């Protein structure tokens, strides 16, 4: 049981446990926190730009992302020899504009990321609350469920379900969302367990306040920051997973652009037309990096001692 209640998540690790030490260390610590926060703010600004670009894709993308032009295949980025100025990042194996595809591809990635995370949280948070609040028997059942989920190879599960349901955007969201809830449940449960024993909760219970009111009024508000941090970091995880699935050909189906399937399609051309795979790869990298930085900064800001 210990391993499971340890509260280690997939994307989040326990960060500094900076207790003790003299005043100088404290000051240094908070300075550092501020420094990291600055990174976080920069990351958030960049994220806003990424989200904005994808939302405004129809207006920003210079071309139709699925318009094929076989006369202009494999055109290199504009700044290279043989590049065409109307295709800034070049074209792919059938002459589609890469910039437009990267922009539209972001829509899929972000949509899947956010929607799946919302779904996971919607399943995971109530389960975690129930497990933490209502005592050992319920707790045991839910923890076992969590253990089963954690044991089950996550990617395999997603693959298998998608194979049965067929690859489509809603299925992908459903699968990634349904598979991602245990981490929320576990963290929420652990937090609930500790909050439940705090004075103000014990007092409310003694005063005869109902369970639901205690949960919603007193426990839930204390959990928000933890959930927000996990959710942020999980968006990055889901984006990477989505690109896994698309890369394996089991995700978003061509010609709809998604970063993962663009990378998969561009693989064959890595030695000749590197840009086809490089730009979607870069997009995945930058986006997940930015989200991770944001998540770390959020954690530092909301609760520096949070043990996730």
């Amino acid at each position, binding site marked *: 049981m210990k391993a499971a209640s340890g509260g280690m998540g997939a994307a989040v690790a326990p960060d500094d446990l900076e207790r003790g030490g003299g005043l100088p260390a404290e000051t240094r610590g908070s300075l550092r926190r501020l420094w990291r926060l600055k990174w976080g703010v920069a990351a958030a600004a960049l994220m806003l730009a990424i989200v904005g670009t994808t939302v405004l894709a129809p207006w920003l993308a210079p071309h139709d992302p*699925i318009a094929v032009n*076989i006369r202009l295949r494999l055109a290199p980025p504009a700044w290279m020899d043989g590049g065409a100025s109307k295709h800034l990042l070049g074209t792919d*194996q059938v002459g589609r504009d890469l910039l437009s595809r990267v922009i539209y591809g972001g829509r899929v990635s972000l949509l899947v990321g956010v929607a799946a995370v919302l779904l996971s949280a919607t399943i995971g948070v109530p389960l975690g609350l129930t497990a933490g609040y209502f005592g050992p028997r319920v707790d045991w059942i839910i923890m076992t469920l969590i253990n089963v989920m954690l044991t089950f190879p996550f990617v395999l599960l997603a693959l298998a379900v998608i194979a049965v349901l067929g690859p489509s955007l809603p299925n992908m969201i459903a699968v990634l969302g349904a598979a991602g809830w245990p981490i929320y449940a576990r963290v929420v449960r652990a937090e609930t367990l500790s909050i439940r024993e705090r004075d103000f909760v014990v007092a409310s219970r003694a005063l005869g306040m109902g369970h639901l009111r205690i949960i919603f009024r007193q426990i839930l508000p204390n959990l928000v920051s933890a959930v927000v941090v996990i959710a942020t970091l999980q968006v990055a995880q889901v984006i990477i997973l989505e690109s896994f699935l698309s890369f394996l050909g089991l995700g978003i189906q061509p*010609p709809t652009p998604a970063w993962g399937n663009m990378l998969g399609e561009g693989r064959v051309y890595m030695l*000749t037309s590197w840009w086809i795979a490089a730009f979607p790869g870069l997009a995945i990298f930058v986006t997940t990096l930015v989200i991770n930085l944001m998540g770390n900064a959020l954690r530092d800001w909301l609760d520096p001692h949070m043990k996730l």
Partner: protein
Amino acid sequence: MHRALTLSTALILALGVATPAAIDAQTKDDTIVYALQSDIATWDPPNDVLREAIILGYHVFDHLAARDVKTGKVGPNLATSWKALDDTTWEVKLRQGVKFHDGTPFGAKDVKATFERVLDPKNKLTARGNHAKIKSVEAVDDSTVRFKTDGPYPLFVERMTAQVMQSAKVIAEKGHDWMQENPVGTGPYKLVKWSRKQEHLLVRNDDYWGPKPHFKYVRIRIIPEQATQIAELLSGGVDVIKAVPPDQMDVINKSGSSRTASSPILRTAMLQLDQAGRGGQNPFQDRRVRQAANLAVDIDGVIKYVLNGLGDRVATGVNPMAFGWDPSLKPYTQDLARAKKLLAEAGFPNGVDITFHEGPPVVEPATQQTNDAIVSDLTKAGFRVKRNYTGDNTVFVARVKENKASPMFNWSWGYYSIFDADAILYDVFKCGETWSYYCNKELDDLIHAGRSSLDPKKRAEIYVKAQKLLFDDAAYLFKWGLRGVWGISNRIEYAAPRDEIDRMFLATPRKK
């Protein structure tokens, strides 16, 4: 604490340190490595329709007759000579002193047993259709066999190149199931080890009756990803790869370590349309819709820009290299306005929804890219195409067989390497045949007439008619005759085979 460490050390040793067995018993100099995109389903060639099975079959088995890769002519192999005694009887003389890998001598009884096994409908072997014209096989003496055919059989000699000779003893004593994994042939190589979906290791048959292959070992590696195949070729892990996409030729030729070779091959690519309604009612049962599809696509553009010119436009499924090809029949050219008009006439003024089943680029390079271009053209004419991709060729072929590929799928036909129009018309266009989604009584009659005459002139006339019919009826969406592209390591001398049957036993080290 101490106990814990010992325990964990023991566990780590047990689980992690055990190294996989080394398979490199052979050295690089006496081994040639050949890559395939997908593995064979069985080592019993008559039971497998795929090109890979034909290729591997050539290494371990022999055929009665074989094509000379240089001249393209069919010549003796296990048979030394043959002649037609009358319109329906062929007599074949066999080579003497040939032994199977298990030591038993090869003779007339083996030829008889092989054909009888293939021809028995109960055995359900895929090769049966190839030899359906053969009525009976008779062993006159140990080195003479007589074939009785159902009417005149002009393709008899060609078809002898498409049937491996298996052992009568093995067929009788070991049986069908055993033969699926244990090939006993008379060929230049013997199978040493088969790791499914990974690798085949063949060793030279030192008792081979013919010219000895240069390389002692052939390793056949199964590498599904084209990118990985090319990387392996460039890094020296593989010596010969096939079906290289045209836009990857440059990187191979500029590498300094390998080169490409290309040759027109006996294979025609098309999109089959379900005219026969095998998968139920569908729009392509209307000729106008099929014509619209043919008119919608700029095939010439696809050949020029996507295949870098490596394809030969054909008006129907008949390949320019096959006997009976009609050079005067002009293919469809793109005409979007007419395509839209035809669709409207067929009752789809607002476009029509169709599903497109796609298979992997195992034998047809750049399938994905050409399909992208074709779908984009179809869309312009009003076809709303939903694409359904199957990544494993064996499975894709099974789907086609089981009527699950309707109403449109990509397909290419390699004629079983028989250079004759009949080898595609019968299998891919005749009513009720496994790979045919087309059904037309008039065409069936022509096919029948064509395969029942020994007079080449008369046959050629029949095939001109058949092609005209297929073209006018827009049986399928016709594409091109393929040009094969091989990637070959610079340490190897190897010629691209136009019958698409790679023969590693003909490869030699390159002279410096």
